[in-house]
């Protein structure tokens, strides 16, 4: 059973969360990343996610397996959108169930941090002024820092 997946259509949050259920779990923490209408002071209209799918899936799966080893958690799942998204759309969902809330919070936070750091997915923001650009992990634009010389 895959715990990390890429989705090219809307994420079914209820289905994801149902997979976290466990009679011994007393807490569940989820993170949702939504498409925000602003970044670094610019108005964002929409964005595209591109992924190197085979590696994104294996790396995402490795992160979740590592989370189960590092934290005292029962279940962990993550699903990331690819394609074109509008403001307010759900871009990424991560969820963890655990006996205690300390572990659930810590593991969920760790998973989303690692996904942003390690999984080969790229965000292209489209701005209100008509420009667009690929972003770095810190959400600064690739274009101005690398190519505008």
């Amino acid at each position: 059973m895959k715990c990390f997946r890429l989705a090219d259509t809307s994420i079914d949050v209820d289905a994801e969360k149902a997979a976290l259920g466990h009679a011994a779990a007393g807490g569940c923490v989820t993170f949702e990343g939504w498409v925000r209408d602003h970044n670094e002071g610019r108005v964002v209209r929409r964005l595209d996610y591109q992924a190197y799918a085979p590696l994104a899936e294996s790396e995402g799966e490795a992160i979740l397996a590592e989370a189960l080893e590092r934290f005292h958690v029962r279940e962990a799942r993550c699903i990331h959108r690819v394609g074109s998204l509008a403001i307010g759309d759900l871009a990424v969902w991560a969820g963890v169930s655990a006996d205690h809330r300390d572990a659930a919070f810590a593991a969920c936070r760790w998973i989303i941090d690692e996904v942003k750091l390690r999984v080969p997915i790229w965000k292209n923001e489209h701005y209100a002024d008509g420009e667009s650009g690929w972003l770095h992990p810190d959400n600064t634009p690739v274009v101005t820092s690398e190519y505008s010389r």
Partner: protein
Amino acid sequence: MNYQMLYFASLADRAGRAEEVRDSAARTPRELYAEVAAAHDFTLAAERLRVAVNGAFVAWDHALADRDEVVFLPPVSGG
């Protein structure tokens, strides 16, 4: 040797393509990146990138084989 190249994000924009087959004398990702960076005017230094061969991360001095799928990965920005 022939390598199946895939390009993503800013590198795909820069190369004007998402993939290409390259006939190359390069034997490592490091040599191959120098070659494609020159061909496509990539300005991202290799140190900023990671490299994957056949769907798995590899080191820059990994020994390439004929028909390998080689991907130079710009810094990621998912989430």
